[in-house]
Each structure stands twice: as structure tokens, then as C-alpha cells.
């Protein structure tokens, strides 16, 4: 589904991503791990079109999207969330989702009738919130949500775009340790239900091994390992970059 070939990114003279090649298949949930500064978020930014590519190629559904604008990538079905929650703070939780749905259904240009007139979309927005377990907080403003709920809402917004491929940048960072698995359970089950492919950046190794089909290990701008979570954890070079253990 997503195919990245020899992708390179330079910021000025510093090379952040060295030629990197990997693939994400349909229905696959892949995690991206690596130490701080490895370039994980940069990689996500390159795929979402947030940051411009220096070299290499990104293909999505057999089409070259290396230089496509973020807008076109969204329309093709690539959505993302944000590591630092990025919400519409002066709109209610329901409206945060509703705006996404208006955008998906191409109704965002309608300028006369009030948003509440579109009953089907309002209901669907409520459904999305129910799926993510925050259905009782419709009329709350994001500023009054707990950190965990904010994260969930951020992911729900990316989910509501009805994308085929979801980029999740640390969906559980800032969430209380006890809630992490609950949050991941809701997110992963929603994704599986819609049969989306997904690339998740995650630090927590328990989450990586519990929820994802495949792991990509990124270190110093390049992928050093690619495989099933259990197998990857045993490799000595992976242990070294992730846990600092010398084999």
C-alpha cells in the first residue's frame, strides 16, 4: 500500500534521514521504534507531506506522491495525528470531529445552513466519539479534557477522515501509564474495524509487541531492522540502540 524507496531528507547540511526503504501492506499495523532523534517524526512528516522530501520516492496505492501537496495526500487517504495534540481549542469535541467529516464529504464549502442541519453527519460524529469512548464529552471544549482524552480525540480526528492509511505519532505519550492499554485498545479496534493500514510511532515495547504486526527499527536516520516484534527484540543490534545493552 505504502512504498518508500531510498527516501532522503536533509535539513541544511545535516542529513536526518539516510536512504530508507520500507513498505506497509494493506490491513497491516506497523510500529516504528527508535531512540530519540532517530528521525521517526521526520519520517512521518515526510509521508504526510508536512515536510518536503530531499530525495527518493514515496508511492501510495501504486501512485507516486513524493511531491504531492498535503491536501492531495489527505484526499488520497493518508491521515495523521500529532505527537503534541493539535486540536481546535475553541470548538467543542463534537465540532472537532464534525469539521473533519464535513471535509471528507465535501460539504465544508456549504455556507448558508447551520452545521446542525446536517443530521447524518452529526450522528456519525457522535458515533466516532462513541467508538473512541469519549461519547459523553461531546459538548466539552478540548481544553477541559484530560491529557489522555485529548490524545484520543486527536487520533479520532485522523480516523474520522476515513483514510486508508493512518500515521500515528505516539498516540499514548502523555497518557497515564494505567490508561495506555485502554487507549490503544480503543484505537486499534477502531482501525481494525475499518480495515485501515497504520504506521505507529511508539516507545513502549509492551504496546509494540501486543498491538503491532511488524516493527521497523530506526536508528540515526536509517532502518536497521524489520520484522515480527518477538524476533526483532532478540537481535543484538536492536537491543543496543533501544536499550543500550551491548551484546
Amino acid at each position, binding site marked *: 500500500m505504502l512504498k518508500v524507496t531510498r527516501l532522503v531528507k536533509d535539513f541544511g547540511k545535516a542529513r536526518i534521514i539516510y536512504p530508507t526503504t520500507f513498505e506497509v501492506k494493506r490491513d497491516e499495523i506497523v510500529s516504528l521504534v527508535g531512540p530519540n532523534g532517530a528521525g521517526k517524526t521526520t519520517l512521518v512528516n515526510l509521508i*504526510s507531506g*508536512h515536510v518536503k522530501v530531499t530525495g527518493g520516492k514515496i508511492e501510495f496505492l501504486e501512485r507516486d506522491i513524493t511531491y504531492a501537496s*498535503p*491536501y492531495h495526500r*489527505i*484526499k488520497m487517504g493518508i*491521515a*495523521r495525528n*500529532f505527537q503534541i495534540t*493539535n*486540536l*481546535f*481549542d*475553541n*470548538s467543542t469535541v463534537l*465540532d472537532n470531529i*464534525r*469539521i*473533519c467529516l*464535513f*471535509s*471528507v464529504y465535501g*460539504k*465544508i*464549502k*456549504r*455556507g*448558508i*445552513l*447551520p*452545521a*446542525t442541519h*446536517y443530521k447524518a453527519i452529526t450522528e456519525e460524529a457522535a458515533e466516532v466519539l462513541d467508538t473512541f469512548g469519549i461519547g459523553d464529552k461531546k459538548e466539552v471544549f478540548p481544553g477541559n479534557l484530560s491529557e489522555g482524552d485529548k490524545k484520543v480525540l486527536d487520533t479520532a*480526528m485522523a480516523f474520522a*477522515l476515513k483514510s486508508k492509511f493512518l500515521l500515528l505519532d505516539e498516540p499514548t505519550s502523555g497518557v497515564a501509564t494505567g490508561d495506555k492499554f485502554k487507549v490503544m485498545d480503543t484505537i486499534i479496534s477502531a482501525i481494525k474495524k475499518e480495515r485501515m493500514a497504520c504506521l505507529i510511532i511508539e516507545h513502549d515495547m509492551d504496546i509494540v509487541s501486543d498491538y503491532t504486526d511488524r516493527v521497523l527499527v530506526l536508528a540515526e536516520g536509517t532502518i536497521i531492522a524489520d520484522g515480527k516484534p518477538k524476533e526483532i527484540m532478540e537481535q543484538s543490534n536492536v537491543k543496543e540502540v533501544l536499550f543500550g545493552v551491548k551484546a
Partner: protein
Amino acid sequence: MALKRFLMRPRFIIYAVVILGFVFLPRLLSTFNLILFEYGLTFAIVALGFNLLLGYTGLLSFGHGAYFAAGAYGVAMTAKYFPAHFSLEILIPAALLVSLIISAIFGFVCVRHTRIFFSILALALSMLLYALVFKFYHVTGGSDGLYVKIPSVFGYTFEGVRRPQFLMGFYYYFLLGVFFAALILMKGIVSSPFGKALQAIRDNEVRAELIGIRVRRYRLYAFIISGMYAGLGGALWSFVNGHVTPDVAHWVFSGEIVYMTLLGGFAVLAGPVVGALIFTFLKLYAMGSTEYWMLIIGATLIILVLVLPAGIAGGFAKLVAKISQHFATRAA
């Protein structure tokens, strides 16, 4: 039953009282005050449009006088060059078209930037228009301005009718109708999906882009709608004033539009309307009572920013919310 419940809502009663009050205003106010009120109404339409940009899209324009001037000169120049077509049903669409063209061109340049850069660019472009209108004496009348006579309506000419009579009779109700239509349309715009998109852009430009909203294009749409409201206000104003001068394109007048909106409060829909009406009376009575009237206007602005940052209507809305909350907790 549903209708009865609707009628019993306090909000509806307030609306009904306000509308009835407006309708019977010509009997209550002196000619002088009524004409002043009409100035206020035209400015209210302008400020309403201006607030789509400031309050809902988060762009502060210091050049909205330009689009006001586009509407006013649209009327005045039609009078000069096509005297045969001087009737309201042609003039208003003509003014809207002129302000559409001007705001589309200026907006196209302005929306490339945000924050202070946007404000300065809008100001610079409006001063450009001011200079053009001021210098092209033979086309625009230069600093003399242009005279706007009483228009005809669907073939009916107000011959022998003097301007105050015209303004107190037919024109007041026409203005009132246009004002309410503009207000209802704006209410529709800001609560529609399009309006929600604008508010999303205001709150978080980056995320708005990443849920598939074309940020720059939507800013331009907002700019054009806002400019057309200003143009409509300008056109209606030109009949009240009877005379159009380049001053309306000057940044000082643009500043007054900003002032009105802040005075009323930009966070509520009715804020700019309240602000425009109060400003019109405040300015004239301040001017009439002292030559240091600017001191009064300036002092009001300082007090406003310090004591009532949400503006008069915004402060009132907060008060009402507080009271109803107080009663709600008491009942519970």
C-alpha cells in the same frame, strides 16, 4: 405546541422587542437622531462583515475602508457615468460587484500572509486605493468627492422629496430590511460548515490544512465576503450621506471600523452591530460637546481594553451566562 414553546423562549421575546423597536423608531427619534441611527446601521453592516475576518477567521484588517469606498464609489460613479440607471435595484448589485472585484484582487495578495503582515498589507493596499481616488480628479472628483442624489426604486422617482424626508420614510425601512437580511445571512454563514472551517483555521491553521481544508483559499473566501459586506455598507451609507469623499478609503476610517468591532466585542455575532451603533452616537455627541472629542474616543478605548476586553455585547453575554448559571446551580 412546538410553536408555542418557540414563542415562549426568552430569546425570541428579546428579538421581537428589538425588531418592533426598530420598526417604530422613526416615530420615537428626532430626524437628527434617526439619520444618525441610519449611519449607525450602515456601519453595523460593515462591522458585521469585518468581524467575519477578525472574530471568525482571526485576521485583523486595517484596510476595510477600501471596500467600503469601493461600494460607495460604485454608487457615486454609476451616478456620474450612467445617470439613466440611477435606481436602487441596479446600484446595490453594482456596488456589490465593485467591492467583490476590489476585495478579490486585494484579498488575493493579503491572504498570503497572516498576523501583523496581513494587517499592514491590507492597510497599504487601502492607502493605494485612497491615493488613486484622491489623485484621479476627473474620474473620481478627487478631494471634492462626488454627489449622490436620491435614487429611484423600480421606476418610482422621489421627485420633489427632500433627503431628510426620503431618509425618514422609505429609505429607513429599506435599510432596516437589508440590515436584517445581512445579519441573518451572517448568522447562517458563521454557523454553517463553511463558518466552522473558518473557525478551525483561526484556532489551528496547521491542523486545518491536515484535515483537508484549503486554508489560503478559505481565507480568501472570507476576505471577499467580508469585503462585500463592507461594500454593501458603503453603498447604503452613500445615500444617507449624499456625498462621497476619498476619506472613506483612508486608514483612519478603517481604524474606526476596527474600533467599532472592539467596542461591541468580536466574540459574539451581535457585537459589531452594538459597537457600530454606539460608536456612531458616541463620536457625534463627543464631537458636539467638546473639541477634544478624540480624547473621549481614546479614553473609551483604553477603558474598554482594561475593563471590558470582550466588548460591550461580549461583556453582556458573559453576565447573562453567569446569572443563568447561578440560577441553575441554585435550582439543583
